[in-house]
């Protein structure tokens, strides 16, 4: 009887000197792995343009149908993204999202990235829909150059639609 008691208390005693496995969340936040898939971010290029070109391949890849993309045509004088197309509306329903990362895989411009933020809680369902403004990183946080495919370098002049023949 005593033996068992001592043995049990011994275990308690042993653990008193070990580092606790729990953390004092939310005061202390546990770091996540590099490949952790948390809240999405929409990235930018170094020049501040949005990486997202509104192709909606993420929405097509999404197994939970959590993403809505409504594209629109860029104003050539003041483009939001390289190329002709940009996402006018980009929404992710975080209640639907299963954080599988397929959107990241599907993205041709590495615009959508699942980052490390995981504190996603809402008081109502509408708040669970993250809009483009919430998802986009600030303009000074861009990286990389747009791919040549979207830059259209060395364009030859193209005759106008109407040619005086």
């Amino acid at each position: 009887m005593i033996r068992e008691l001592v043995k049990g208390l011994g275990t308690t005693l042993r653990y008193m000197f070990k580092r606790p496995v729990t953390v004092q969340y939310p005061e202390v936040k546990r770091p996540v792995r590099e490949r952790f898939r948390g809240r999405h971010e929409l990235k930018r290029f170094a020049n501040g343009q949005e990486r997202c070109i509104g192709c909606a391949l993420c929405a097509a890849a999404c197994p939970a149908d959590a993403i809505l993309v409504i594209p629109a045509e860029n104003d050539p004088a003041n483009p939001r993204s390289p190329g002709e197309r940009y996402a006018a509306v980009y929404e992710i329903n975080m209640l639907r999202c299963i954080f599988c990362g397929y959107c990241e895989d599907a993205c041709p411009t590495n615009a959508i990235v699942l980052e490390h933020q995981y504190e996603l809680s809402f008081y109502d369902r509408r708040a669970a829909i993250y809009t483009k403004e919430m998802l986009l990183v600030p303009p000074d946080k861009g990286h990389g150059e747009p791919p040549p495919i979207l830059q259209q370098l060395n364009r030859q002049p193209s005759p106008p639609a109407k040619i005086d023949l």
Partner: protein
Amino acid sequence: MSDVTLTIDGVQVTVPAGTNIVDAARQAGIAIPVFCYHPRLKPVGMCRMCLVQVGTPKVDPATRQPVLDANGQPVIAMMPKLQTACTTPVSPGMVVKTTTEEVRFAQRGILEFLLTSHPLDCPVCDKGGECPLQNLTMGWGPAVSRFDYNDKVHFEKPVKLGDLIYLDRERCILCGRCVRFQDEIADDPVLGFDNRGRNWMIISKSDPPFNSKFSGNTTDICPVGALTSSDFRFKARVWELQSKPVVCTLCPVGCNLTLDMRHDRLMRVMPRENAAVNDIWICDKGRYGHRFIEAPDRLTTPLVRRNGKLVPVSWDEALEVVADQLTLIRARHGGQALAGLAGPQLSNEDLYLFQKLLRELGSENIDTGIGGPAALPPDEIGGWLAPGPNTDLSKLGSGTVVLVIGADPEEEAPLYMLRLRGIAQRGGKLVVAGLRPTKLERSATQVVRYRPEGELAFVQGLLKAALEHSSRTATLERLAGWKELRAALERVSLNNLATACGLTVDGLNQLAKDFLTASQSLIVYGWEARSAGPALTEALAALMLLSGRTGTANNGIIALLPGGNSRGAIEMGVRPDAGPGYTPRKQRGLDANGIWDAAREGKVRAIWLAGVDPAAKLPVARAALEAAEFVIVQDLFLTASAEYADVVLPTASVAEREGTYTNAERRVQRSRQACAPVGESRPDWQIVAAVAQALAMVPIGGGRNGPIPVTTEAWSYMVAADVGNEIAAQVPGYAGITYAALAATGTGGSWGRQFDDAIYYDGTSYTNTEGVGLVLPALASKGTVNLTFTGKVTRFADERPMLLLEQVLAYDGDRHLRGSKLQSLIPRGYAAISADDAAKLNIHSGDRVRLISAAGEMVIPARVLADVPNGIILLPAGLADVMAAEIETGPRTRVNLAKVVTE
């Protein structure tokens, strides 16, 4: 033609002689990839994608017999080079190999070549997802490109080809489909090529650029994203779209459409294959003109006038007001004090219930359209003598005579131009007769240009000549007025008639003989012919009856009437003189013009306008609506007439409801609901039924005019099919045309949409699985033709030198075109005059001219056109800023023309 048997990849297949290898392989279920080949266009063999190995049996030159090998099998001599399957016709015993290493290498090579100058911007390209270049690359192409991206040719883009189409020259693979479509099918050769080599490119040769009413079809058949529609640019990805089958109500062709919806919003309009109606094409009006569905100014709630202002109310309130007022007016003044006008774009269900309710209330004052000086009586001939069941113009060719009289199909019913042109291209005889040149003339085998007002002489001349060749007058003898017509014909000589119209006697004789002896003969007439007066169309009807083939397939008269369902409106009895199915009414009601007069005199006190806007065009209607005690306007928009309305009821558009429509050939087609109605709007038939229900609930009796004969039970239609079934049961001629029967006509379709069949890329036209419609059994075939020859011609108030003709335009002031890309193509009001007349009065295009008739005068900018005959003024009355009613004295008007001189 005889059949040919050949072997493709070891599969024996028998096809008609003249078939090319691509189509033959298709029949055997073998895929040969193509880019430039399109089954509706002549093969050119430019893209070289369809290269295959072809061999033919070796023939001994001495004996002309096939050489046999040891096993008795013919020795096959394979051609030294690969052949393009699209340009090589099949021959007996031919052997085709499509999967050998050599063929694979060549096809992979071609795809690699195509991709070297393609920008590969699929993620931003609108074609992505339904792109044959994508599909064929997945199936036949190389996995990686060895081409250096920096060596690609880049062009500035996009290039705007007109307001409707954008061109991306980088994506273009130069297959020439668009150029060939415009040349061969649309007869608008406005596209072409410029430059050469890698800089070879598509250009538009017209001013304004890409000036064609069929331009949108090029985006369908473009095998890459080079031609994109401005209407769908960057709007959605194609895999997100839900395709809903509807019928176009913008003209009497009744093209089958697919509305591509995403989240209940209209993204784009696409053709739905129906060989007998629109094949795989639609006109730009149908493609771009459906933006009214989501116009921001659509009515969303019922409105009732309170203290002089229209205020939103609930349906119950609005219906109560309508029921109370109608009951009251009927009780006080009788059923004849009620009147109703319905628009020709409403469905058969709407129109049927509309007239049914008014007639149950005791009113015969029912009409289609808005009246006005140019209004014509309902066209019965196009109904009685319409082509019979199984009519399919796409099958007609050699042996067919088509007589097009006084019609401009390109403007009145654009798809008919393509179909009639197709008949001529396949060897049929297309006679185009008219006062002025039309685009269809360019495809005609014979053009008849009679002198102004010579058309009646022309048609009577034809009839007189036909009478000499045909003795099938039995049906005619039974018809009222025939004796008088015949006597009149006997009084004039063919010579005089020929002189009057400007033709020769031989010419008339030959034409009449051709018409009677053809294996199929069709007559198509339009506004210009009808405006000459009933005598003209009656003579055409007699001519058709003389052929003795009326009521059979591909024989008959096609009348091009304004609006999408005018034939349906006539057949549903939305007319003052006859009920559904051309059954005459004992008592004749007032037509639209009669209603306006009666309203001003206080005889008609309640006017119900369903889908018509008379106030926008007719001063007389404004006065009448002002005078009327109670006006109901039932429309998509707050129209000009709504200003006079006491109650405004919002209706659902064609996309938001089910319905059936009867086209110019009397083909009934079913349209489905594509999205939820906007706001609280309801389909017209539901509104009419709800009004009937409300009437039945009105507590007061009918007064001295008897109780309201409407019961809740009789008007309890739950779905459109209930009304459809009643039409099938009640309307003569519509027996069996139930919703189920219409849906059952759906075909698997030979025209695979991308998703169905990635290889056979014919365009993005959709397979028709929702029904191709049914042609009604001909009324005439029973020998009970009930026509009267009135011999009436359009009379003029007085004699003036110039003849004013209304011109129908496809892009006019139709309120359905609002919000569409077509807005910029709608011209400002003008009066078109000939160059000679203009020179006489020193008028130049843009000068303001004054038109003076017995009825009044108007000032309008002139447009000098080379192809208007002298003495004729064309007035596009459909344009919003042309108030033709101010000067018109009838369907045609004689006017003086003067130049307005401003200091």
